[in-house]
């Protein structure tokens, strides 16, 4: 991530240095040609002609341009490319997606429970009856009013559910990770602002996990940052990580959570996390372990079949 920020920040400086150096070279060459008898204009035109393809020069210099202070985006991408071939990291990524997806869907469901519960107070009345504020913390008041405001509360809940659903589908996990990063960042700042104890630590961990998931899919975000730079090709997720098994598991988790949500919060949490853990365990014992031991049924992911 550091490399990404640095790359975006210093790309202009690198381009300026390359262009300045080109101008310096052409001026030196033109001066030498002018000294041999050519007019200033002819000398400059000849210097350009001798230099050749300026576009190719700029592209080649950009590829080779050094990044001395921080690792470059290319370096980060190559590291990610290497990491993506690790089975342990692939499994960790899937588990992280399922875990974060479950957390987000759970939050959405809890928000739903709060929203459908009968409003304790009329939010409009808060402004006229200040006595009702007695004994309530500011954050309690804020959350209560938010919960009573149906459109806003429902929208926030729906966005959480959407981010969670995108994460557990695996295929659209990059979108989900980006959305989750924004949601957890806002929650993190919220809890910090209202002096929550412990919660910012928990959210900080989730935020870090989201950042890791975004970094994992950094290759697909290259066009947002690289502009005219040549993109590094990173192999798309293939092998068992792209198996439809994970999308099915994710869909099952979302449906089961929605059903269990009708019962109570504890049942919902148990169902969601239970299915996730069971799914990973099934995959390990049914496909990965026999493959590692070199026996049993061979697992053919979609990409290999094609």
């Amino acid at each position: 991530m550091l490399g990404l920020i640095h790359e975006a920040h210093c790309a202009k400086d690198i381009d300026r240095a390359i262009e300045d150096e080109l101008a310096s070279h052409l001026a030196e060459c033109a001066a030498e040609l002018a000294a041999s008898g050519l007019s200033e204009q002819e000398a400059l035109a000849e210097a350009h002609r001798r230099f050749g393809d300026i576009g190719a020069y700029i592209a080649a210099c950009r590829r080779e341009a050094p990044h001395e202070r921080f690792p470059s985006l290319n370096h980060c991408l190559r590291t990610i490319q290497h990491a993506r071939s690790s089975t342990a990291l692939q499994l960790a990524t899937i588990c992280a997606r399922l875990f974060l997806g479950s957390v987000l869907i759970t939050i959405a469901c809890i928000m739903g429970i709060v929203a459908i519960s009968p409003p304790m107070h009329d939010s409009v009345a808060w402004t006229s009856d200040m006595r009702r504020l007695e004994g309530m913390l500011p954050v309690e008041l804020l959350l209560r009013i938010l919960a009573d405001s149906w459109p806003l509360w429902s929208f926030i809940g729906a966005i959480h559910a959407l981010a969670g659903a995108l994460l557990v589908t695996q295929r659209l996990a990059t979108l989900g990770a980006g959305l989750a990063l924004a949601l957890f960042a806002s929650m993190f700042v919220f809890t910090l602002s209202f002096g929550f104890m412990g919660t910012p630590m928990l959210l900080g961990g989730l935020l870090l996990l989201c950042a890791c998931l975004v970094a994992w899919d950094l290759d697909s975000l290259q066009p947002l940052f690289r502009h005219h730079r040549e993109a590094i090709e990173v192999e798309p997720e293939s092998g068992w990580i792209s198996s439809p098994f994970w999308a099915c598991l994710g869909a099952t988790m979302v449906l089961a959570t929605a059903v269990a949500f009708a019962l109570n919060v504890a049942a919902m949490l148990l169902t969601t996390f239970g299915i996730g853990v069971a799914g990973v365990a099934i995959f390990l014992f049914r496909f990965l372990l026999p493959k590692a031991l070199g026996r049993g049924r061979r697992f053919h992911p979609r990409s290999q079949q094609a």
Partner: protein
Amino acid sequence: MPKPPNRDERPEIPPGTLDLLILRSITREPQHGYAIARTIKEQSGATLLVEEGSLYPALHRLVRLKHVTAEWGTSENNRKARFYRITPAGRKRLAADADLWRRVSSAVTAVLDGADLRPGEGRTACSA
């Protein structure tokens, strides 16, 4: 003095030797890109002509590898220019590469001239 070959008749710089030529050109004093190209041209009797399109990327690569450092200064013609200075790591590489080049070129010359090399003499790893 023999007439230097035309631009199109000049031999291409053998692959892998451009870095060596650049490092050699800046061993005495820091030079800017245009001066490096001119030094190589003059010292080779106008036989070797460095293409600008490959010179500058090579310089940037050498900076990245920390074999040279670059800083902006003023050229002899009082123009802003980027000067390249060789580093201790660059000098080490120059010594190693120059030694390898001498052994390879003497071995190639020996083969071309039909001379027999004694076992072990001038032996070096040579990639295709």
